[in-house]
């Protein structure tokens, strides 16, 4: 979780350079929770789990 905008931009550039690991990188809003950072928007929350019609994606692991 990054709270400084400039650090965020740098982290985004670094992530974009990791093209053999990840694609379509962007910064998303997050909040602090007892289990670490959590997304604030439902779209990002879905992305941390996977689709709601099957237990596929990250929730499968």
């Amino acid at each position, binding site marked *: 979780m990054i709270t400084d905008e400039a650090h965020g931009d740098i982290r985004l550039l670094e992530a974009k350079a990791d093209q*053999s690991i990840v694609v*379509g990188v962007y910064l998303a809003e997050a909040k602090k929770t007892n289990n670490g950072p959590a997304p604030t928007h439902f*779209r990002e929350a*879905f992305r941390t789990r996977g689709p*709601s019609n099957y237990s*596929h994606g990250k929730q499968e692991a």
Partner: protein
Amino acid sequence: MYVYNDFDEAFVRERVSQFRGQVARRIDGSLTEDEFKPFRLMNGLYLQLHAYMLRVAVPYGTLNSAQMTQLAHLADKYDKGYGHFTTRQNIQYNWPELRDVPDMLSDLADVGMHAIQTSGNTIRNVTADHFAGAAKDEIEDPRPVAELLRQWSTDHPEFQGLPRKFKIAVTGCEADRAVIRAHDIGIQVVRNEANEIGYKVIVGGGLGRTPMIGKVLSDFVSKADLLPYCEAIVSVYNLLGRRDNKYKARIKITLHENGIDKIQELVNERFEQIQPLFGGIDQQFLAEIEHSFAPPAFKVKSTDGYDAARLANPAFRSWTDTNLSEHRADGYAIVSISIKQHGATPGDATSAQMRVMADLATKYGHDELRISHEQNVILPHVHKSDLLAIYTALRDVDLATANIGLISDIIACPGMDYCALATARSIPVAKEIATRFDELKLEHEVGPLKIKISGCINACGHHHVGHIGILGLDRAGVENYQITLGGDGTESTTIGTRAGPGFGADEIVPAIERLVLGYLSLRMSKEETFLQAYRRLGEAPFKDILYPEKAAQNAA
């Protein structure tokens, strides 16, 4: 059915080989994602929320058994055992690994299939009436023309960088089952006064953020002129269409901004220039294509067993009441297999289900299957004496739901469960509505009712033309669902009217229930459908049902 010739085969193989090289260079780091993106989009490979997605073209929704079996093979070998049939008669795989995609395309090429032009600003898969070649009300099978358009538009050098995507739909009869008035070009087979077969050409329809109903560009284009006429339209659009704003780039906006008269004038001018250049070669191709779409040899056989089975088995009778359509041949029926089991994801079929459908097509269906834009699978040519065997086999794999055209036969886009463009989920809403009305046991009482759900303004779920349309939006970080009423996707195409403020995710299913129960109390008789009642009464009583508090305030 059309079978690839040597040219098609070589072309598709060459594209697989090129893409294999591009994927290898992407994986070894020679290509960045930005460099790779145009190549993957040319081959139908999208990036979604959780993984890549491969969209495979099913030209005009027609498949043979071997192709359906191969789709099942792809689902098992490279995906998670299922595929998703789309509202453009295609199939999507949601979980391919990038390194496997060239093999998937190679396996598709083995059965004469590909994923070319299922993305990008090109002419997309040409869609058609899913009852083509079988419907009783048809003037002529629209698929030869659709195949001609497919061959012409595939890799057409002038049309690889259009202002925006371009969709063509063809139907062979007055009854519109292909939503032709909501396509960039809609083509309808017609007869003129001299009884010659030709085409009514409609242009500038589309849904999305600016829904528009297409306008008739020509009432009659002769068979020989159709291809140059379509080329003239796309050619005019290619120059005139806006490239400064992607939301104003579709031909519907070009038409709206320039007017039908100007477009007509420009198209006619261009047509005069290019028509002589075709020199009849397209007609030679068309003649060959028509030959390959010759109807199968229909059986002549008694249907006594079928009639007896209907009397003896109420569940079978119910299925035949809803899932059959009239066939042009005596003793035959068109079977719509519902991919909408109550509570399941609309349009999703498992590999086992695909194999059963393929086997049934081999055994009883003259080797043909269709995908409908309503996300169901059709066996277009079935003799009635085989229906009980088909029903029994379908029932064993949860494919015998008797709900075609009813409230649970819902079109739903993948929505935010998969799609990167979505603003809300569609699938859970569709599942919950279907489950709820199954619990209420009201589906057959309610009768014909089309609910269509889109998870964003792009309207892949055709919500504008649903009798009840549902549009999922993001309102201040919460899923919110807007209802539109009175839409119609047939020959009397109508864009639905927004009913009022949206509903939260926990309110939308109760709102639909209220609306449908309200319709039951408003209709004049059991014969008056939801859409007919809406047209008779107007929106006011339906809005009162949807927003009872507002109605109470107004009454006070």
